[in-house]
């Protein structure tokens, strides 16, 4: 189960989407998120879904990978759907039995909310799938670099983020290993009340914490050995250059937002 988490996973590739400047992708993802909240019609959702599908295809990302990434969110999605389905006020009843009532408005809104969550999450996944975490942090660092003037340690923050992402798969592996070890000694992690299960997690968390601190210590030494001394005077192998490709992406992004707004106005 733990192995299924693909959050923060990067699928290396050499497609037009992969080659976009990370700053472009970050800004466009932000634009996309805002646009999703602007969507006010089914036509708008169709447009957003089509845009998402087009980028997915262009980036050679398997739809399976996106769906797999969405799986852990199933609870939130079901919760959103149920909440909207049963608790939307309205008179146009589709189904009514005692205090349970489902309205057409409710169905409409539930479907729209679920779509919205799916599109939002899938869109941000596309960013992490096609952009290496280092490129994301690099892009963020540069987008935020004006803050350096306000003494915000932008480089240190981006490095922290990068390292955190790097260690996610390792920590997952380690958790699996500790879980097996504890199960082999008879630990019961799956049954019992919530309180019992939370308590059973302690023998899992403590070794995980201890080993994380050890890892952090070793990593810090290894970084010192490689002449790490903060962000001052650092250069980058990969220079970011905005190219024609990024211009095209921005134009397409603007067209997308315009499309969403037009569809909203028209109510399609």
């Amino acid at each position, binding site marked *: 189960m733990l192995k299924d988490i693909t959050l923060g996973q990067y699928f*290396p590739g050499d497609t037009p989407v992969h080659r976009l400047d990370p700053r472009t992708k970050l800004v466009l993802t932000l634009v996309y998120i805002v646009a999703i909240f602007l969507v006010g019609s089914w036509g708008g959702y169709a447009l957003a879904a089509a845009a998402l599908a087009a980028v997915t295809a262009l980036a050679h990302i398997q739809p399976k990978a996106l769906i797999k990434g969405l799986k852990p969110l199933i609870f939130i999605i079901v919760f959103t759907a149920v909440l909207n389905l049963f608790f939307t006020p309205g008179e146009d009843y589709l189904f009514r039995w005692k205090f349970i009532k489902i309205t057409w408005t409710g169905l409409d809104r539930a479907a729209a909310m679920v779509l919205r969550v799916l599109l939002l999450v899938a869109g941000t996944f596309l960013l992490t799938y096609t952009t*290496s975490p280092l490129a994301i942090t690099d892009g963020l660092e540069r987008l935020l670099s004006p803050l350096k003037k306000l003494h915000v340690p932008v480089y240190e923050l981006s490095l922290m983020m990068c390292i955190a*992402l790097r260690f996610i798969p390792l920590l997952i592996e380690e958790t699996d290993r500790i879980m097996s070890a504890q199960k082999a000694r008879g630990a019961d992690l799956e049954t019992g009340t919530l309180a019992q299960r939370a308590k059973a997690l302690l023998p899992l968390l403590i070794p995980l914490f201890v080993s994380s601190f050890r*890892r952090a210590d070793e990593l810090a030494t290894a970084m010192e*050995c*490689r002449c790490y*001394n903060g962000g001052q005077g650092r250069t980058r*192998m990969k220079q970011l250059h905005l190219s024609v490709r990024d211009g095209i992406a921005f134009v397409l992004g603007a067209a997308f937002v315009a499309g969403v707004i037009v569809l909203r106005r028209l109510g399609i």
Partner: protein
Amino acid sequence: MDPIIRVENITYTYPDAPGPALDGVSLDILPGTFTAVLGPNGSGKSTLAKHLNAILTPASGRVLVDGMDTAGEADLLAIRRRVGMVFQNPDNQIVANVVEDDVAFAPENLGVEPGEIRRRVDAALTQVGMYELRLHAPHLLSGGQKQRVAIAGVLAMEPEVLVLDEPTAMLDPRGRREVLDAVEALRREQGVAVVLITHHMDEAVRADRVVVMDRGRVALDGTPEAVFSRRLELRALSLDLPDAAELLARLRDGGMDLPAGALTPEACAAAIKEALA
């Protein structure tokens, strides 16, 4: 030839430790040489390694790298650039999520100009045979591959000495061979001096010089032939002989007339053949 690293009578005690980890160690490392450091657990091998690039500084005595004292803060980066260090667990040394970005970490820290970083990264990855996998994510690589990436990450500083602290301890036999072959090729082709800290006698056989540590001191120091001829002293430190030398020693104990000094399987086979002829 001037030594690239000169260790002069250093001592070091860890905070809260009952005794010193290093107790008067002196050692010269000459450019382009291959030194293996052996010793039981707790003998001070790793502590010594950490003194070679100023991760630790000695309580007394001094360590000079290319004439620079490691106790001086000013030369810290210059020292670490010259003496690259690779540790046991490759997972805890790799910073980035893409192989080539990780290799670029050190030259980026040093403020090397971008085009030159690209050249160094490509050269370092080629030297360890990982160039084809430069765009891979490290957690999808095998142990031997990860450790070679870690070595490339240090090589990108273009160091004069490579210190490896038990680099093969967590690897399977195949990974071990990959790493050792890469290290040996580096020394042969690039003239990088190598200091290899190891538990494996068979790895030490490849060195020009073997240093055996015991309780914070240098117990034995010489060519592999000289050190591995001291079987009883090694056994007292609970160290074994390399397999080939152990076989010959036992055959000699059993009454065969065999010469000492054969350390590799090839030399061992030749010696036995000659004795039987």
